[in-house]
């Protein structure tokens, strides 16, 4: 009798306890109790998680699943927390071989992490492309040494892969599709984006510098060897967000970005523009941040391959109107567009930027070009690429730290 009581206590009680605990509580406890240097293995299966899983203040932790198709954390029905997984104030964290789905806010956000790797992680909203989906699928912000490789991001109402206000970044061999922005590098310094596929988004790859932020001026970004195609999805971002201004049918867009090199990309069938180089003024948002620099400078676009079907640009949104009523390109839409809003203060007597600050476009296969002269109400739209024919020294690129 006594023995059976004890068996009950030691065998059944713990099992009951485990059964009562939600999956979240089990995984969350491991995230909290992990010792520095530990690997947290996630098993095979689909785990329904009802609140944010968070990790804080850890060093050298690996969170590893059994594969992006085998270990799935589903945040469908999430009741609390603004992201699926949140990792903050850590160093040398590796996330690999799992999927995270359908979080209410962002799917995986990492902040103030020095050394963050996403490897073979799939982050996706699985339903319709909707403004009700969260903003970012993979979202490192204010991080250093960010490596995103062989990942998949889908369904974001802002950007699938978004690196913001960070330094030393490699995004490679990943896929971003059916997001508003596929891959976005924003207010970040030293980034290499290569070997990726960005398709069926509203805009494929974005390099942005925005006002009102702590990390003011990004730069040194290389975008190369990517395949950027058919980014013709209607923009489904909630209004108010800058990404909501990205025209449907955009391949690569550089907004107020400085020191950027775009080369060896295949940019195919993006109906509105293959690559656009624009200042923040084109967004028509007022600028109140006096320390913000709104112009793109030192942009080098070379050796890319452009091709597109003969069709009209988007008819939607402000840009649609612009193309229809002002630019009137018809079906002969230029592959590369520069908004023609220069920083007057640094123009020389010939209305040119100094050699090292120029917008250079050279040796792109199949490319047509337009400077749309937005500074003067689109009066002198020029399709002549010769004024932009120059080259800049190659950027050094990001030294691997791993």
């Amino acid at each position, binding site marked *: 009798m006594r023995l059976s009581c004890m068996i009950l206590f030691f065998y059944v009680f713990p099992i009951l306890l485990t059964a009562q605990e939600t999956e979240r509580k089990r995984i969350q406890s491991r995230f909290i109790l992990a010792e520095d240097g530990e690997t947290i293995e996630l098993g095979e299966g689909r785990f329904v998680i009802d609140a944010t899983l968070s990790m804080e203040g850890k060093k050298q932790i690996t969170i590893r699943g059994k594969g992006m198709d085998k270990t799935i954390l589903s945040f469908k029905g999430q*009741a609390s927390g603004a992201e699926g997984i949140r990792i903050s104030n850590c160093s040398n964290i590796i996330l690999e071989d799992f999927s995270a789905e359908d979080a*209410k806010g962002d799917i995986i956000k990492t902040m103030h992490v020095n050394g963050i790797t996403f490897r073979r992680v799939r982050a996706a909203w699985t339903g319709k492309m909707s403004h009700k989906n*969260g903003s970012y699928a993979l979202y490192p912000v204010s991080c250093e040494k960010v490596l995103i490789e062989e990942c998949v991001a889908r369904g974001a109402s802002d950007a699938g892969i978004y690196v913001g206000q960070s330094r030393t970044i490699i995004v490679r061999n990943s896929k971003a599709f059916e997001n508003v922005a596929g891959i976005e590098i924003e207010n970040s310094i030293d980034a290499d984006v290569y070997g990726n596929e960005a398709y069926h988004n509203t805009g494929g790859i974005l390099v942005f510098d925005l006002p009102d932020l702590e990390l003011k001026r990004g730069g040194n970004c290389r975008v190369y060897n990517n395949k950027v195609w058919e980014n013709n999805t209607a923009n489904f971002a909630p209004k108010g967000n800058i990404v909501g201004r990205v025209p449907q049918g955009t391949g690569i867009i550089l907004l107020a970005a400085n020191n950027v090199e775009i080369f060896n990309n295949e940019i195919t069938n993006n109906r509105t523009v293959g690559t656009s180089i624009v200042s923040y003024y084109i967004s028509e948002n007022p600028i109140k941040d006096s320390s913000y620099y709104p112009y793109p400078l030192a942009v080098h676009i070379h050796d890319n391959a452009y091709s597109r079907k003969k069709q009209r640009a988007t008819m939607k949104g402000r840009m649609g109107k612009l193309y229809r009523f002002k630019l009137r390109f018809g079906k002969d839409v230029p592959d590369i567009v520069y908004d023609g809003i220069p920083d007057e203060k640094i123009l020389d007597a010939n209305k040119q930027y100094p050699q090292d600050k120029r917008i250079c476009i050279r040796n792109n296969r199949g490319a047509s070009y337009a400077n749309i002269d937005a500074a003067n109400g689109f009066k002198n739209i020029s399709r002549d690429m010769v004024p932009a024919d120059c080259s800049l020294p190659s950027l050094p690129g990001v030294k691997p730290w791993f």
Partner: protein
Amino acid sequence: MKARIITVFFIITALLYLAASIRLEKPPAGKLSNYGLFTGTLSNLEPAADVVPYALNTPLFTDYAEKLRFLRIPAGSTIAYNDSAVFEFPVGTVLVKNFFYPRDFRDPSKGREIIETRLLIREENGWKALPYIWNREQTEAFLDVAGETRQVKYIDGSGKTRQHAYYIPNMNQCKGCHNHYEAMAPIGPTARQLNGKYGFAGSQDNQLAHWATKGLLTGLPADGQLPRGVRWDDPSTGSLDERARAWLDINCGHCHRSGGPASTSGLYLTIHEKDPLRLGIGKTPVAAGRGSGDLQVSIAPGQPEKSIMVYRMQSTDPGVMMPELGRSLNHQEGIALIKQWIREMEH
């Protein structure tokens, strides 16, 4: 023979189980009662001799939960006063915050259910946050690092029965708010929050004066020049602007400040913020996503319904709502205050 096998098996399992539970209870004390903060029946929250109750003028909204706060500092040590930031507390300080619901908000004699007790402990190398969850029997609270969802039920001030989920945060989420430049830090105990009376133990003393008299606080200005203690819900304590700013400070400013977790948004909501743009007036969102609610700016003066700030305060969707933690309900009275503030803003 069979019995012996069972016994051996059982001993091994017991050892494994013990090992596992020790590991789970690694942080300081597994139970709230271990700290000796209270005397008598634990759930009466009767402070021990060296424990001081205190209250804030404008507290954080947490789903209408009531709070009882206490603090204990080591004998012989003192708290250093300053007039703008959180006081400097000595090593060994314990800040105690109990979250509870009266069974009937109109009649305290009907008792209460304590949900959780959060401790902030000042150690040599910084602050540590420890969440304790009360059992249903109200006999003890246990350290629980992973957080939990509780259903709570009570009768509110208007006599209506209310029932809703209450989210007890996990240990990491403590730092979602208590975070300044990635160091854990208290939020509430500032001069302007403590400058007021607290009617405990029959005393009507000003809290700060009381602390100074007890020898707990040093550096209190002798001339009585203290920062104004503004209560968000009491117009006699401050103007509309002051009360709205006090509400934003305690509910939002811990994240929305330089060095806070929301600094990447460029929106700064502490009571010290002077720049209208940083405060959100005419400010476009950065990474708000669907949190923008299809609106253009954080604050549209004169137009609360066009202000993202109000939109997010009025949501309970985890991907939209602000603050993003610690509530499943809207703070109706707080929303009304902020709306009025924006409505009356010059434009």
